[in-house]
Every structure is written in structure tokens, then in C-alpha cells.
């Protein structure tokens, strides 16, 4: 009981981020942009450093920089598709370098910055939790509001464009939402692991269900459950919550791919018996 009274802001924040990150991840993974989540994390790191330097909220810094970074990457990728991976690399490493330089100039190379690298969900205050929760709801509302467009573009971008969808605007919207997700998620699992929460639950869900809609819903459920279980285990075992949450998700992936294989073997055996 006393643990719960201490942990509830962490659990609520973890659950909301755990649900929101894979909801965006379902679309990002589909576009073979898995690395973008990671890259936006790098970019958000620069935002945090700049935020700490300027004395504004690090979350605000990360939000602004990650959302702008998402839009910038998309624009540059489109202008020069052959150089896409170089564009990503420039953005990512440029951001880390910026973060390191800014942090050293401002003397914030300290616990503060490390907290953002590795997450600090157990120290989330109710006020921070409210901010995280509000942003997570914005992300989920964005996915719900643009569901038709995002799904059609994820399935077949060219067909979506031919059908009259503003595909470029949708891509920009998705990148902004991904930037938001990273900025919010870094509070819970840290910059280094936030992309994991966008990607791994989607892998779990893909092994278990068929449709896009079920994949999205199941991935969000897996993400939320991993966060809650991870925080609980971390509290008991006194381990780092961010790493524990992600390890729970990795375990879920192993389990899900086992289930998929077993199902496949069963179906083959049934088919063999029927023949």
C-alpha cells in the first residue's frame, strides 16, 4: 500500500508513455523508419542540454528540438533520397555533438543530464506526471484523429497519394508526433531507451495478431503492461526502472515469437493430419 502511494505517479506516467510510444511506433516501423525513433532521441538530447543551458524546462527544449528535427529529417530525406542515411547521420551525430558542447559550456554535465539519458520515472512528481499524461493523450488523440490517413499511408504510400491523401503532410505530422513521443518517453525510460518502447512492443504484437488495428492496440497494451511490470520489478529488485521496463518488453518479444512458432507448427501438423 505504501509502495503504491509512492509509486502511483510513476505507474501512471509509465502506463501512458508505454501505451503512446508503440502507437506511434506501429506507423514508424511500417515505414522502415525504426532508426528515426533512435535518431529523434539523439536530437532530443540536444534539446535537453539546450533547455538546461537556457534555464527553461528540459522537456520544452526536447519537445521543440525533436519536433523540428522530425520535420527537418523528413524534408531533407525527400529532397535527396539517395543521401537519406547520410542526412540521418548528420542530424543524429550533429545533435549529440551539440548536446555535449552545450552541456560542457553550461556546466550541466551532471546528474541532471544523466537523468534524462537513463530515465527517472521513480522521481516523477504528480505535476510532471500530469504534463507527461497530457502529452501522451495528445499523441494518442493525434493517432486517432488521423487514423485513416496514417494507416493508408503506412500500407501503401503511393496508393494513398493517388487516393487524394496529403501524404507529405501526414508524414510531417507523424514525425512531429514521434518527436513528442520521444520527448515524453525520455522522462520515463530515458533517451537511450525510448526508441525501444516505440519498436519492441510492435514486434511483440505483430507476432500475435493479424490486422493493423489489432497490432496497434496490442502493441499499446504490451507497452503499458511492460511499463507497469518493469516499474514494479524495479521497485522490488531495486534495479533501474528504464532498463527493467525494456527488458520486460524484450522478454515479451521472445515469448510472442515462441507463441507464433508453436502456432505455425500446430497448423502444419493439423494440415498434415487432414491430408
Amino acid at each position, binding site marked *: 500500500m505504501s509502495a503504491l502511494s509512492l509509486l502511483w505517479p510513476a505507474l501512471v506516467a509509465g502506463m501512458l508513455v508505454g501505451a503512446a510510444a508503440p502507437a506511434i511506433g506501429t506507423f514508424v516501423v*511500417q515505414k522502415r523508419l525504426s532508426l528515426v525513433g533512435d535518431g529523434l532521441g539523439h536530437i532530443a538530447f540536444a534539446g535537453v542540454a539546450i533547455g538546461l543551458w537556457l534555464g527553461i524546462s528540459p522537456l520544452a527544449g526536447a519537445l521543440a528540438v525533436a519536433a523540428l528535427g522530425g520535420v527537418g529529417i523528413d524534408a531533407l530525406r525527400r529532397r535527396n533520397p539517395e543521401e537519406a542515411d547520410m542526412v540521418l547521420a548528420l542530424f543524429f551525430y550533429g545533435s549529440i555533438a551539440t548536446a555535449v558542447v552545450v552541456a560542457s559550456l553550461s556546466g550541466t554535465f551532471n546528474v541532471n543530464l544523466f537523468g534524462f539519458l537513463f530515465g527517472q520515472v521513480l522521481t516523477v512528481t504528480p505535476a510532471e506526471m500530469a504534463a507527461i499524461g497530457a502529452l501522451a493523450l495528445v499523441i494518442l488523440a493525434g493517432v486517432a484523429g488521423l487514423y485513416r*490517413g496514417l*494507416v*493508408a499511408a503506412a500500407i501503401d504510400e503511393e*496508393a*494513398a497519394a493517388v*487516393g487524394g491523401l496529403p501524404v507529405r503532410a501526414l508524414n510531417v505530422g507523424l514525425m512531429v508526433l514521434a518527436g513528442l513521443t520521444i520527448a515524453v518517453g525520455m522522462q520515463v525510460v530515458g533517451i537511450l531507451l525510448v526508441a525501444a518502447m516505440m519498436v519492441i512492443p510492435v514486434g511483440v504484437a505483430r507476432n500475435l495478431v*493479424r490486422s*493493423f*488495428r489489432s497490432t496497434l492496440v496490442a502493441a499499446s497494451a504490451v507497452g503499458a503492461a511492460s511499463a507497469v511490470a518493469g516499474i514494479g520489478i524495479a521497485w522490488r529488485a531495486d534495479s533501474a526502472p528504464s532498463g527493467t521496463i525494456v527488458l520486460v518488453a524484450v522478454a515479451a518479444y521472445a515469448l510472442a515469437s515462441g507463441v507464433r512458432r508453436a502456432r505455425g507448427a500446430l497448423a502444419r501438423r493439423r494440415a498434415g493430419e487432414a491430408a
Partner: protein
Amino acid sequence: MSPAPDRRAALPGAASGASAGPALELRGVSFAYESGSILGGIDLRVAAGEFALLVGANGSGKTTLLRVAIGLLAPAAGEARLFGLPAGDLGARARLGYVPQRAAISPRVPATVLEVVAAGRAHSPYGFFRRADRAAAERALGRVGLARLSGRRIGELSGGQQQRVLIARALASDPALLVLDEPTAGVDRASQERFAEVLGALNRDGVTVFMVAHDLGAVAGSLTRVLALHQGHIDEVPVAEARERVGVFLEDHSG
């Protein structure tokens, strides 16, 4: 034909096929890849209600012409228009159904056949898919004989089945203009004939059809126009003359 109120009905004049201009129009369109010129100043008008077939040798530029016509490729010179609007216009595109030559859907996409087909109805990005979308997608799958497979993952289907899914996707979008690029290449003969009937019926209901094929095949009876693409230019072939050559076309390709 469709009980659900479709968007064509919502667009003034679309259901009757009447609109501000020809369904599809190329004005002096030229196009070149780095490897060389493909289209050399093509003028073409396909009026609402027509059933036009574009034939031509492999590599003559049929796919390129279609992609320019629907705004996927920008012409080097000239202009492509749909319903009297620039081909990139989102409103014009919402009235277009397109079946590409090859499926462009990654086998890894975790989407069901039904979801892929329903996505053809996403003319606006907002909100969720609705029961009417689902019903239209199921109807379209029935028309291509795939109703049974609606719950399967798209990646589990064979190439020929996926091609039929793309046809269903175009049908489900309630198009005023259907643009098809060799839609039945790699599809079995029975499906081809059933599909030709579906196209003929749609055309009689007022849907304009512009289709690329190697031969007149099963659609010969429905055609109002035959166009031959040759060395970057289009020749009109009188339909009666083209029909007489059906046998020749088929012999060349029945293998």
C-alpha cells in the same frame, strides 16, 4: 449498385460522369528518364464514360504515361489533368481508382486483406474506418472472388491474389475514373473474364475506364477506344479494326 451513399454522389455531377473537363487529359506531355525520351508531346483526351484501352510493346512507355497522367510523375513539358483539374489536385484524385502494374505493398505490413482494400476509401485522413468502408471493401473483394480471404494477412497471399486485392482496392474507392496498368497480368483466365465483366458493368454505370493491356482480351466487347503507344506517340486504332485483330493478339500471348 452500391447501397451506401458514396462520395461520387456527394460531388456534384460526378455520378452522372459529367464534370468540368475530360476525365483524363494530356496536353503536349513529354517525359524522359535519364536513359532517354519516353513520351514526345502527347495530346490525349479521355471523355467521361469512355472505356479506353492503351496497347503497346513492352517498354514503349505505357506505365510511364499512366503515372504522368495521374500525377505520380511530373512531365518535362505539357500538363496532365483529371476532371479538368491539375493531376496533383487532391479532390480530383479522390475520384480516381488506380491499379498499379505491380503490388507495392511490403509483405511485412501487418494488415489484413480487408484493411488494404478499405484503405482505398481513405480520401480524407481524418477519423477511423467505418462500417460503410468495411461493407464496401467486402463487396469489392466479392467482385474479384476473394471474399474468403478478407481476414488474411496481405503478405500471405500469392502474387496473383495480391493483384486482385489491388483491383478490389480501386473498386472499393467508388471511383469516377478507373486507371489500370495491366491489371490481370499474372491472373488466371477465369478471374480475367470475371474481371472484364465487372469492368464492363462499371462502365455501363458511368465509370470511365482507362486501361493498359497487351491485348484486347476479355474486355474487347466493352471498348469504346483503342490507343496504341509507339515511339512516344499515340495512334488511334479504330475499335472495329482492333477487334478483328483480337485473335491475333491472343495467339501472341496465350503461350
